[in-house]
């Protein structure tokens, strides 16, 4: 049998089973682990390209696993699986090196689309490309009205290229949409500090600090 490409780490037997079958159906080979320790053992033996990691695990939790593997296996990409509504953990995971996140519940199509996209996004690609990739994902999510998801991607982008103004401008916009004017103001200022000529952030800052204030017309790019 061909060497498996994807490792599924989940304490739920049925999730492991169904996820495996969903991926195997599109000819992606998988292996599974039910705990963090087991996952680390398997990672030490086999060079997986992708790990689907549930963050909620008994014993060593998902974030800890992620912390241990990121530097050790630079070619391994990780998609974390989070429970509904736990965006903050997702952000943390992305900072720790996860490439994407999957919110429960999901259907086979969502899993397959994401796995395909991640595998095709050329793991060997340069960081600059990855950065554009996340900015793109963030903007897609904003257009779809999924601001929380967008924030995760924007944060990831900012993490990858700390000196670019775009992610902060996007985060600022998301803060504004959420009604948090102060954080928005802060993020726009960071964006402008990084690049004083960046027009969208300048426009947004002007609007945020103007009276009367209106949330209408956020400049995303």
């Amino acid at each position, binding site marked *: 049998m061909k060497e498996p490409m994807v490792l599924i780490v989940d304490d*739920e037997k*049925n*999730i492991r*089973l*169904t*996820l495996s*079958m*969903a991926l195997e*159906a599109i000819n992606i080979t998988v292996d599974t682990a039910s705990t963090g320790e087991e996952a680390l053992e398997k990672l030490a033996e086999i060079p997986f390209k992708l790990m689907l990691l549930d963050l909620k695990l008994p014993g060593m939790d998902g974030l800890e696993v992620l912390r241990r593997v990121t530097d050790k296996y630079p070619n391994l990409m990780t998609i974390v699986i989070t*429970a*509904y*509504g736990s965006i903050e953990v997702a952000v943390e995971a992305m900072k720790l090196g996860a490439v994407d996140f999957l919110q*429960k*519940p*999901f*259907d*086979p199509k969502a*899993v397959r689309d994401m796995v395909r996209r991640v595998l095709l996004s050329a793991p060997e690609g340069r960081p600059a490309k990855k950065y554009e990739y996340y900015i793109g994902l963030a903007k897609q999510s904003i257009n779809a*009205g*999924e*601001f*929380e998801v967008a924030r995760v991607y924007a944060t990831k982008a900012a993490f990858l290229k700390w000196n670019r103004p775009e992610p902060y401008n996007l985060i600022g916009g*998301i803060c504004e*949409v*959420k*009604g948090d004017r102060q954080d928005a103001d802060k993020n726009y200022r960071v964006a402008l500090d990084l690049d004083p000529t960046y027009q969208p952030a300048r426009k947004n800052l002007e609007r945020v600090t103007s009276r009367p204030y*209106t*949330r*209408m*017309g*956020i400049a995303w790019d």
Partner: protein
Amino acid sequence: MLLRTKLLLAQVPLALALLVLGAIAITTIGQLGSSSERILKDNYRSVLAAQRMKEAIERMDSAALFIALGRRQEGQELAWRNRSLFEEELETQIKNITEKGEQEASQALLRRWRDYLASYERFVRETDYQVLRNRFFTELLPKFLAVKEGADQILSLNQDAMVRKSDEVRRFSRRLETFITFAAILAALAGIIVSMALTTMIIRPLSVLTQTARRIKEGDLEVRAKVEGSDEIALLAQEFNTMTDSLDRYRKSSLGELLQAQHSSQAAIDSLPDPVVATDLEGKILNANRTAEAWFGPVLSGPLGEAVRPLEPALTAAIKKARKYVLAGKGAYLPSDLEEAVKIVGPEGERYLLTQAAPVYDETGSLAGVSVVLRDVTLLSKLDAMSKSLVATFAHEFRTPLTSLRLAIHILLEQLAATMSERQLDLIYAAREDCERLQNLVDDILDIVRLQSGKLELYRVPIRIFSLMENICDQHRLLAEEQEIMISYSLPPFDEEVFADPERLELVFANLIVNAVRHTPPGGSIEIRARTNRESVRFEVKDTGEGIPEEYQAQVFDKYFQVPGNIRKGTGLGLAIAKNIIEAHGGEIGLESEPGQGSTFWFTLPKTEGQPGG
């Protein structure tokens, strides 16, 4: 006695005073006249007599001279005439003695007259002219002078008396003048005072009546007007008292009933375990039950929130909100949602109070006040919180098994669809369908838990109406057409924007449309409409379904509510979620429906962010 008579009698003293004064004046003036008359009668006659006597004696003297000169005949005639004249006057004088000393003077004159007459007789008998002349000068002339002097004496005596008496009369009349003046003033004063006193006495019953009426006006129906007599005022007072009697009787009877009613209603509200406070339109406390006083201290008639023990700000805000709702004329404020309950820390620990308010109308049917009930829903709230967290936990725990279940069914369908019999396929489709339903239920529950715990974060952006409605319609067209229902939309004249969270807004539309599809028979139609106002946009989802009976219309937005008698089609959460979302946007949601005529669900959204979630 009639009032007219009395008033007339009251004028009598004044008239009497005038009469007395007149009588005095007449008498005194009469006196004055009679005294002048007396002067005339007493003295004037004496003066006249004295003068006539003087004249007569002088003629006698002339007559004597005539005789002495030899004209005896003429002289004796003249003397004869004057002699009787003198004696007549002397007689008159002697009869008219009025003054002191007059008697003596008259007697002296009489004596002198007789003396003169005796000398005259002797003189006349003399025939010798020489002797005659001698006798005239030596005897007759001195006696003539003596008589004349005597008459003069009487004259002057009476003239003096006249002067004195006229002086007296003048003085008397001057005194009389003063006296009459004083008497007039006195009489006038006395008359006025007595008349006034009498009039006051007559009028006094009127002021008694007035005072009684005033006291009755102030509410003292025990008072009666005490007026004696039989005049018109007394009659009026009698009638007045009769009227007061019946008024008193009426008030006592209605007051009794009123008190009874008030007591029983007070007892009723006192027996309520929840605080009840009645306020007027301005928020002043009119009445409170025992529980309210036990909770907030003795309630004074002050503005709500300024009770002896100040209310907690959250409670004050809730009361204000409830009152505002009622004062806006929207009817009773009866929130059924326990989320509205306010937590306060009372003497018995934490309590949850749900503020309800009901309008109080006056007899004309206009709003007169607001009665506020603070329902103690502590137990219910705790149960509700428990059940909510239980539901949330369950819903959460459902996700993992559901995820694998869905994946399993999908994969099975993918891999085995070709090899399965039709009945096997039906079975697995049924499994998939129920899996989706379960999934929706879990999603809805978690949604509503999040919405109601206030954790709902809105991501609001301007959304253009035209494209929104087009998208919404497209998204649900398939679903509607599967049920043979026409779905269409009609746009407002101008493409405007609403300020809303797009994801949540889609959810609201989805819930309303799915609901409409469920309750509309095949062949029906669903129309989505929008109408713009100055500040908001009103969206409507109109169906041609079975409609909702009026008695259930108020409850359709409640959690887990389903119109009884219908087959359970949804989770009963969709409309509750929609309501939560719309209200978080500062909009309103409602419906118009008639059974058999279809339903129109509508909601409004602000165009700008002017209204944050409330």
